[in-house]
């Protein structure tokens, strides 16, 4: 029982981290039709900034709370200075551009922090474990699940309920009309991209104590995130949430109980989904 629940918790943790990664990816694609191959880089940057901030200030919380800010600024800059010039070009050019950026970010991280694996220490208040109904669970992981859930709810409220969210959806739906209504479309697009990568950066920062912080994590988290988005459907936040949890749990349980098959489980799931519903479970087909 202990083991099963522990694995479930681990699965949910992975799910939450995947959600933070894939929500941004899906958002950026769904709203802007841009595939950000450098999304993993922002996850990594968020982790490193949180690490640096945490070490500088001595506070984990400060790192988590503010670590995503530099990433957001960089994201905004990337969109305004580079990506915006490629909107009229085929999709693939944006993919290539963001791919080029992964090289740059990778070396920048290496230049500043070196190639070793670093660690963000868990804060005092969350270290150790807690006992719930006779089962011992690590506090930090429980925190992560709650944290991820909170972000998911906030994100949903923002996009679905707020005025700003409505502007986002309008600007994306019909930019010239939105501009005619006085919405600053330039600011909007830059902000959407910044929000998307900010989520990834937040994920990286939060994942620090669990996954570690190192150059190379950008590539490692990218493929699972892509798989999640493909399964959930590009552009669907709900899809990103459901499939993150699904993938997180299946992958973790798979590794725990069927270590040799675990590898294939996720890929199999992806192939199955793509063959039956090519746009993903919740996807809206965009041509």
């Amino acid at each position, binding site marked *: 029982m202990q083991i099963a629940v522990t694995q479930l918790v681990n699965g949910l943790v992975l799910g939450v981290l995947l959600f933070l990664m894939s929500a941004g990816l899906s958002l950026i*694609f769904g709203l802007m039709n841009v*595939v950000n191959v450098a999304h993993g880089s922002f996850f990594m940057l968020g982790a490193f900034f949180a690490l640096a901030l945490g070490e500088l200030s001595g506070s984990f919380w400060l790192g988590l709370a503010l670590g995503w800010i530099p990433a957001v600024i960089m994201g905004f800059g990337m969109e305004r200075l*580079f990506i915006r*010039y*490629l909107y009229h*070009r085929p*999709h*693939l*050019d944006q*993919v*290539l*551009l963001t*791919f*080029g*950026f*992964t*090289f*740059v970010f*990778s*070396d*920048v991280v*290496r*230049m500043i922090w070196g190639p070793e694996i670093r660690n963000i220490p868990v804060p005092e208040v969350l270290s150790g474990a807690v006992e719930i109904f006779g089962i011992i669970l690590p506090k930090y992981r429980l925190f992560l699940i709650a944290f991820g859930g909170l972000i998911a709810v906030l994100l949903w409220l923002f996009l679905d309920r707020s005025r700003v969210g409505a502007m986002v959806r309008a600007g994306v739906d019909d930019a010239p009309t939105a501009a005619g209504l006085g919405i600053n479309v330039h600011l909007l697009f830059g902000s959407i991209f910044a929000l998307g990568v900010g989520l990834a950066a937040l994920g990286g920062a939060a994942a620090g104590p669990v996954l570690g912080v190192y150059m190379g994590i950008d*590539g490692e988290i990218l*493929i699972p995130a*892509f*798989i999640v*988005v*493909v399964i959930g459907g*590009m552009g669907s936040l709900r899809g990103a949430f459901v499939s993150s949890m699904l993938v997180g749990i299946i992958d973790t349980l798979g590794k725990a109980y069927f270590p*040799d098959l675990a*590898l*294939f489980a996720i*890929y199999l799931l*992806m*192939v199955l989904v*793509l*063959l039956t519903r*090519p746009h993903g479970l919740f996807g809206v087909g965009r041509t």
Partner: protein
Amino acid sequence: MSSSDLGGDRARRLAAALVVAALAAVPLAGDYFTSLVAEVLVFAIFAMSLDLIVGYTGLLSFGHAAFFGVSAYTVTMLGVHAGLSGWWGMLAGIVMSAASAWVIGFFCVRVSGIPFLMLTMAFSQLLYSVAVKWRSMTGGTDGLPGFVRPSFFGWSLDDRSVLYWFIAAGFVFTWWCLRRLIRSPLGSTMVGVRENEQRMRAIGYPVQRIKLISFVIAGAFAGLGGALYAFFNAFVSTDILHWVLSGDAVLMVILGGAGTITGPVIGAGIFLMLKHVISSHTDYWMIWVGVVFIACVMFLRQGVWGLVLERGPRWLRSDR
């Protein structure tokens, strides 16, 4: 379809002869240079094969390393574990690559654009993970040493020049085959798919089948490249299957010029030169490659060779 292009034909033939002569003469310039050119040619084959999918059929794949790596591993594993000669290994490698391309392609061509990109990437990573896990056969991340290079009618491929000439021959063969393919009806259908997939379907073409054919042919030539890589390196490790290598190949194709036959060759040259030259001065060569690539995508999307074809002499245009 111009009536007579004798001047252009002659120029092309002369250029081809000069290039072949230059290629043959490379070993005269010393061991280091020969190795460098050999490496470039191996990756040129890899990049040209990817261009068939990317530049000619219009499908962006980030999983091409799968076919390069499958062949390299097949050759090396058969050689090291079964003592099979590199020649049989090469044949097996190309077959394995084509077969994997058929299986992976079967799933991937069902979707296009971004899902296609992600699927190809994911499948390639799947193979990578298998190679990492299967230590007993592949040596895992430590790699598999001990490959014995074969001999060609008594001439051992351990001789750097012989190895080089063989690779150069493989390169010329690939270049020639792809050129013929592009000019053929099958090639024209691939271009049609790139130009307007919807219309191709409306006029009666089975587009999915064409994409799969393109994918398999590209996989087979990547397999040839992979086998030659195994000969060249006599050592293979899991890096050869990683999507980073797939990304490098995409870089080469775009830098050089997608949708041209010689573009990827130029791109492979530029990429490897950049890597070697910069890394001899500093550890941080990736940032430079990244910057060059970003600039290329923003300002020189047609690639270096693409630019040459646009501005250069007319007789070169047939390279498209």
